[in-house]
């Protein structure tokens, strides 16, 4: 028994150290904390975090705790999975898992250790986020900090999400066909289905009580409690307009009522039943079964779909490569951009789809989707050399060693502008400001993707950070011009363009500095 516990502890400890020593973890944490600041609008803008019957809720521990707690819960649910869903895969790729499999370690111990490792990581992340939000409350709050009230909001909202995501990540990683990108997609739909089921039930006055046991997100609990506490259904959370003529309202925060004790307990504990299911499917690093997990070859379903489009993308690459002949630096940029089409023929499909849809659909509707797709595509460019082990080969090419960051920025920008060519052309008719905003948005995405890619060598860092930001922007619906970084809603001003342009420049400057320092050390 003791040996078992020590093995589990060792697995949790190793996972914890590995994750928290990554630069990407620090960056994601800082980005999330920055978004919390942006998430909470200043009342002077006419918008408030929580609006109840037109009245804004005072920024006290209950309101800010709820607001930031729900953001933390959204992060855990929407992005936390993608951050932690590589714990077992990491062991496959490093082959440390094969060594672990040759020890007396049981599969159940391993999976429990991975689950607890996921739990520890997400819980620590949320705790850190909670502390930084409390600091923000001290700066921007309108009432004294009540730590226990603040903590209570987090305890009521986030634990079930953390347990659910941690367990589901272990389960999906254990099932071969869910261990890869399909699992990432399936997870998104599982999460949205659970949210929709629960929120829909509470919005219809909670007639289907069993759905409360599936309230892993805490959304249902939050909606029900707010409606009961405030005796109204007219509530909105997250940058909502309020009536400045009405007096602000004091929201005391959520509390656990008797009828919610059992459902919250069930939603907290029921995900644990996923672990024995994971154990049934777990491969224990049998090389025959892990071949699919490591994504080797084109046997996985995405690989097969990619192969279908290879003939088309080859023609596209041949066309794109024309300016790359001659061996110049610019040619190297074209080559690297073209490599994306070679590696991922589906990018060509995305290009065609974006171009066709952009010709007909309203720009305001498609631009957010275009940028989400763009983020997924360009996140690979600055990270693929480190991940493929070709950094050494690349650095031996003249001009690329010293200009690596500019090279990657160039190819990311080229790829971005190619993909966004049709939306750019259509934006011309909307005026120079709209065009400038869109160009600035593209450059912002390219520069931050490059900077984060060079710094962390992990595409997920940029994807998680950018999509969190993207989520806030899309839900803002253009009400706050400073969030409209690419002119999605036509709200971007000259100041917006200047700010995001500056952020892009600073990001690429930081990336270049980081690269130079690392180069000097090697």
């Amino acid at each position, binding site marked *: 028994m003791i040996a078992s516990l020590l093995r589990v502890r060792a697995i949790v400890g190793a996972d914890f*150290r590995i994750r928290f020593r990554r630069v990407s973890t620090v960056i994601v944490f800082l980005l999330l904390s920055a978004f919390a600041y942006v998430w909470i609008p200043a009342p002077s803008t006419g918008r408030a975090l929580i609006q109840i019957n037109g009245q804004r809720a005072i920024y006290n521990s209950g309101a800010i705790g709820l607001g930031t707690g729900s953001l933390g819960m959204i992060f855990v649910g929407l992005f936390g999975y993608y951050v932690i869903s590589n714990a077992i895969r990491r062991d496959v790729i490093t082959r440390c898992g094969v060594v672990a499999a040759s020890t007396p370690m049981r599969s159940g111990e391993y999976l429990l250790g991975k689950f607890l490792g996921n739990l520890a990581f997400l819980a620590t992340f949320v705790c850190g986020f909670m502390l930084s939000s409390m600091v923000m409350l001290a700066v921007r709050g309108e009432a004294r900090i009540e730590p226990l009230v603040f903590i209570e909001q987090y305890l009521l909202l986030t634990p079930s999400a953390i347990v659910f995501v941690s367990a589901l990540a272990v389960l999906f990683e254990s099932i071969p066909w869910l261990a890869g990108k399909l699992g990432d997609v399936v997870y998104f739909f599982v999460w949205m289905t659970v949210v929709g089921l629960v929120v829909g039930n509470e919005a219809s006055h909670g007639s289907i009580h069993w759905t409360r046991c599936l309230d892993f997100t805490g959304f249902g609990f939050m909606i029900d409690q707010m409606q009961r506490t405030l005796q109204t259904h007219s509530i909105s959370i997250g940058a909502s307009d309020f009536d400045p003529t009405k007096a602000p309202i004091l929201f005391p925060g959520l509390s656990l009522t008797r009828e919610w004790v059992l459902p919250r307990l069930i939603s907290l504990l029921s995900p644990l039943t996923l672990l024995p299911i994971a154990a049934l499917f777990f491969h224990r690093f049998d090389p025959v079964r892990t071949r699919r997990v490591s994504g080797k070859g084109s046997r996985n379903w995405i690989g097969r779909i990619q192969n279908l489009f290879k003939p088309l993308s080859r023609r596209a690459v041949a066309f794109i490569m024309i300016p790359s002949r001659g061996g110049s630096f610019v040619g190297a940029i074209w080559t690297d951009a073209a490599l994306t089409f070679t590696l991922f023929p589906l990018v060509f499909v995305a290009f065609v789809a974006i171009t066709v849809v952009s010709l007909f659909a309203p720009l305001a509707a498609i631009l957010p989707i275009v940028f989400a797709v763009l983020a997924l595509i360009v996140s690979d460019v600055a990270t693929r050399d480190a991940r493929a082990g070709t950094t050494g080969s690349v650095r031996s090419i003249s001009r690329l060693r010293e200009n690596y960051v500019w090279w990657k920025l160039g190819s990311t920008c080229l790829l971005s502008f190619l993909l966004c060519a049709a939306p750019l052309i259509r934006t011309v008719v909307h005026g120079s400001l709209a065009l400038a905003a869109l160009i600035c948005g593209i450059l912002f995405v390219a520069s931050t993707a490059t900077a984060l890619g060079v710094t962390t060598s992990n595409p997920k860092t940029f994807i998680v950070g950018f999509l969190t930001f993207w989520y806030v922007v899309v839900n803002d619906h253009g009400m706050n011009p400073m969030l409209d970084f690419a002119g999605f809603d036509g709200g971007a001003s000259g100041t917006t363009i200047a700010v995001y342009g500056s952020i892009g420049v600073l990001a690429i400057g930081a990336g270049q500095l980081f690269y130079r320092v690392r180069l000097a050390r090697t």
Partner: protein
Amino acid sequence: MLTIENVSKKFRAGNYGVRDLSLEVKSGVIGLLGPNGAGKTTLMQMIATITRPTSGRILFHGVDVTKRPNELRRKLGYLPQDFGVYDNLTATEFLSYFAALKGVRSKQRVMEMLESVNLHGVANRTVGGFSGGMKQRLGIAQALINDPELVIVDEPTAGLDPEERVRFRNVLSEIGFGKLVILSTHIVSDVESIATEIAVMKNGALLTMATPETMLRVCEGHVWQAVVASEQFDQLRTTLKISSAVRKPDGVHIRFVGPSPEIAATAAEPELEDAFLYLMNFGPTDQPVV
């Protein structure tokens, strides 16, 4: 100590990684030789209980490890091919992790192992900054930390410089006393000086298992040496099984193996490299040559 009875591993595509292989070994260093794709890694993975045989049994001290794998795992040290590390952990943390998985609680033991592989000076450095040789030494340290009876080492010298390879061989030679070490490689020199027995595999089957001396005796009379012109050498390369070729002022000095010389040549004293090449090309595939 270890008995392998008619073990086969058939993959989903219908091909065999290992086909009906049987052998029995006691203690010492067993060199498992074979070209790429011979089935060495698959065999080692089955012995290490990482993957199950499609048929056959593997007995360790009489216990069927396919049914009771933990009986072997408690006494096993395994270093896989292309061993990787967790870059962000220090050497001490990395070794402590595997020590815990193997049930070794003593922190002293971790430090002793780092000393034995000459990594105690970098014990608190993150392993991401280690050279290939240092990572392999760390790998052997984790394989030995539980003082195993059976040590399986899969192509441990791949990518190491000559000095590191010699060092590695010495480490393996030392641990071979009183234990069973199975070392797989396609580089003959890795096992030449340290192996007490050599098993040669090809296409999933065992060609032979014998002492190095026996293998050399089998090869006697089938190793030839000659001096040929450069132009002739280019042609001979495609027709003869050449084990070595050295260009000298008087021509190309070649050693080749075969039942009889096809050119004017003199008999040469066989070396293990010759024996391996002879077995690969002229040895029987259905019966071991002993």
